[in-house]
């Protein structure tokens, strides 16, 4: 058996599919080969971790809701189901016919308007827009819907919309957003983003075509591209100078170095390399030789400022957009930048590492999931540097970003709570955050932990009434989650020790006993129930409970105590 064969048979060996002969041979080899032992150990560990990843429980209420949704979708009996499917087919046929007619009408109108020179009316879109339905698009698929000028596209939590505005331009509208169509014609497209987030891809514009997105405090305008190129000879070979008057141009050298050059800037390439610094602007003139220049389209978003009449965006140097991430390569570049930041962090240059992560966070081109990951990486770096307050700020920022997925914001809030509790020893701050988690993310993955930790914090502050309230709330709201018996047990103990309310405690102990006969708290619950009954003066019931304990737990931790108390009772009885 050699290393190659160990790799070949390793999976069968780990999964128990290998013959005994192979198993022996592999084991013998592993005893002497550290590399193979590491390899097999890694696969085993991976398999264990994969197998251990649990899934969250669902409450009875949640299952009931899912069940009802399924039945609603299917109808309540076969007849209904048959009718529903039949109707659906009929509806589909009707819809297909109607859609075909609409498309035909629009195409004819479009062609007619193109050749007749007529302008389209401001009250109707020239191009039909396809808008995905809000909510679940997987069941219904995309539905075509004409949007009129002054129409509004609003999205709800968990949904998105896609607006196709002309032949290839799109506006992707994230959840919880509101976009108003202010103007829509062949020459003017003006949208107003009143809330939320959009990602826009704009096709090449013709001269005179305007594309503007307004927000409550800014205007973004897509501009064309105007630039000049000069080629001069230097002692290092040809020198190409690119000067951009409008828009943005991707400038690339033969060795692969590239940079986006924005309006009002100029860069040069000498020989094969990009010159490190900007050069003085040259006058605008026709290029004298051909050079490979790739024009970026669409141009990157730029900072704007309002002019006096507030009607035109002025292109200015952007200060938040990472200059070198082409949209179509965003994932690849994201991974590269993250690796770069990790490498810098490991080598001790945390400032540069944070700078890269901040660029990714500020990028308008990355999808929310990657921006979230960048935030979390930043927080992890800050935590490892013991910059706990900064890490808290980073996590706070994540919680506040509505476009992130709910579970991401929940995760960040939970981690923030833990940071405040453990690293910053900020009990009150932690309490506030756990409370916020419970309130805002009642279906969060860490809901049980949040409740228990919150209760522990109140216990540490000796605020037992609040602690009781937390356990009660948890038990009442999440009756079927794992850990409920622990909460009931803690609650019963609190009733006894802090409220002197044995009656409530007995009720809870009895409930644990009946609902969790083999639970980890049942033995203790049985003993303490007997204890409570004894304290209430219910001697006979207490004795029965102690006897019950002795029968069920003959080697239990309270056995001596329980037997002793039974003997005492009997002694008292005999007297």
């Amino acid at each position, binding site marked *: 058996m050699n290393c190659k064969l160990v790799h070949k048979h390793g*999976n069968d060996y780990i*999964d128990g*599919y290998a013959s005994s002969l192979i198993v022996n041979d592999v084991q013998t080899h592993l005893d002497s080969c550290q590399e193979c032992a*590491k*390899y097999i*150990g*890694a*696969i085993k*560990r*991976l*398999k264990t*971790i*994969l*197998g*251990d*990843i*649990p*899934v*969250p429980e*669902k409450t009875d209420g949640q*299952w009931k809701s*899912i*069940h009802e*949704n*399924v*039945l609603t*979708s*299917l109808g*309540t*009996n*076969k*007849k*209904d*189901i*048959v009718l529903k499917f039949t109707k659906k087919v009929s509806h589909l046929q009707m819809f297909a016919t109607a859609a075909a007619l609409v498309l035909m009408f629009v195409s004819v109108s479009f062609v007619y308007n193109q050749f007749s020179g007529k302008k389209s009316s401001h009250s109707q879109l020239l191009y039909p827009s396809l808008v995905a339905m809000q909510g*679940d*698009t*997987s*069941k219904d698929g995309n539905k075509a819907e004409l949007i009129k000028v002054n129409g509004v596209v609003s999205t709800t939590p*968990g949904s*998105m919309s896609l607006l196709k505005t002309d032949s290839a331009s799109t506006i992707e509208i994230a959840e919880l957003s509101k976009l108003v169509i202010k103007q829509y014609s062949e020459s003017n497209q003006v949208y107003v983003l009143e809330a939320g987030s959009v990602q826009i891809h704009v096709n090449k514009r013709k001269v005179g075509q305007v594309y503007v997105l307004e927000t409550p405090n800014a205007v973004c305008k897509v501009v064309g591209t105007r630039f000049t190129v000069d080629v001069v000879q230097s002692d290092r070979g040809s020198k190409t100078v690119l000067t951009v008057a409008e828009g943005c141009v991707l400038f690339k050298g033969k060795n692969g170095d590239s940079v986006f050059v924005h309006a009002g800037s100029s860069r040069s390439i000498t020989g094969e390399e990009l010159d490190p610094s900007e050069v003085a602007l040259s006058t605008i003139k026709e290029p004298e030789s051909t050079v490979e220049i790739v024009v970026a389209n669409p141009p990157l978003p730029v900072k704007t400022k309002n002019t006096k009449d507030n009607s035109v965006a002025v292109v200015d140097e952007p200060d938040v957009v990472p200059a070198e991430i082409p949209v179509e390569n*965003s*994932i690849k570049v994201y991974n590269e930048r993250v690796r770069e930041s990790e490498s810098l962090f490991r080598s001790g240059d945390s400032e540069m590492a944070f700078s890269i992560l901040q660029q990714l966070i500020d990028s308008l081109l990355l*999808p929310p*999931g*990657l921006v*979230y*990951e960048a935030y979390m990486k930043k927080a992890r770096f800050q935590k490892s540097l013991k910059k706990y307050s900064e890490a808290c700020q980073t996590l706070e920022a994540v919680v506040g970003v509505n476009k992130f*997925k*709910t*579970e*991401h914001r929940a*995760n960040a809030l939970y981690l923030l709570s833990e940071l405040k509790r*453990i690293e910053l020893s900020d009990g009150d701050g932690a309490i506030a955050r756990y409370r916020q988690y419970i309130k805002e993310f009642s279906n969060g*993955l*860490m809901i049980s*932990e949040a409740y228990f*930790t919150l209760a522990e914090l109140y216990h540490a502050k000796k605020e037992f009434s609040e602690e009781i309230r937390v356990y009660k709330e948890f038990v009442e709201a999440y009756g079927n989650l*794992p*850990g409920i018996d622990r909460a009931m047990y803690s609650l019963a103990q609190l009733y006894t020790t802090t409220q002197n309310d044995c009656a409530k405690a007995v009720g809870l102990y009895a409930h644990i006993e009946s609902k969790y006969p083999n639970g980890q708290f049942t033995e203790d619950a049985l003993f303490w129930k007997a204890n409570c009954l004894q304290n209430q003066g219910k001697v006979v019931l207490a004795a029965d409970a102690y006897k019950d304990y002795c029968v069920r737990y003959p080697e239990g931790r309270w056995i001596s105590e329980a037997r002793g108390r039974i003997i005492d009772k009997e002694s008292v009885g005999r007297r």
Partner: protein
Amino acid sequence: MSIDNQYIDDNERLRITKAAQGDKQAFSEIFFSYKTMVYRVVCKFLGASENTDDAVQQVFIELFKSLPGYRGNAKFTTWLYRIAVNVSIQYIRKRRRDSDVESLNTEFHIDRTQNSGARVEKNELQMQVASALETIHIRKRIVVVLHDMEGRTMEEISDITGLPLGTVKSRLFHGREELRVKLKKLLE
């Protein structure tokens, strides 16, 4: 509709037959019998995301539609797994289409059984493994999920996916290998 008894008992056969005829009660019984299994499988593909409930509903809707075609020539759970896997793949593909990224966006549930410090470390590890799992090709991911997370045997996976046994083994090997390389520092 006639169902062979080889893989299911009489009660199950009767329940399925009734459900296929539109009996709400019978279908509801099937739902409540298998809901946890379906949810677990879907969760392991999609994570505990907002789409998971939708996907679970879709699995049962698809099950209902396909019940008349069930002849009992495979275990009912195999049949159901097949549907769950197919629906999960549809959702993964749709998510990829919508977000234009091999998503790092789902999270798995975090173990609640340990003390706080070890739990947080284990959670991080599980999250990283879960994230890495999302980056491997769906063909390999199916086999890794069904084998290492769901505990299905090779033969069962072969039945569920319709793939030859050799292909299942090969995809499991390559899937694990890819994960091992991606998570090298964590695992060693």
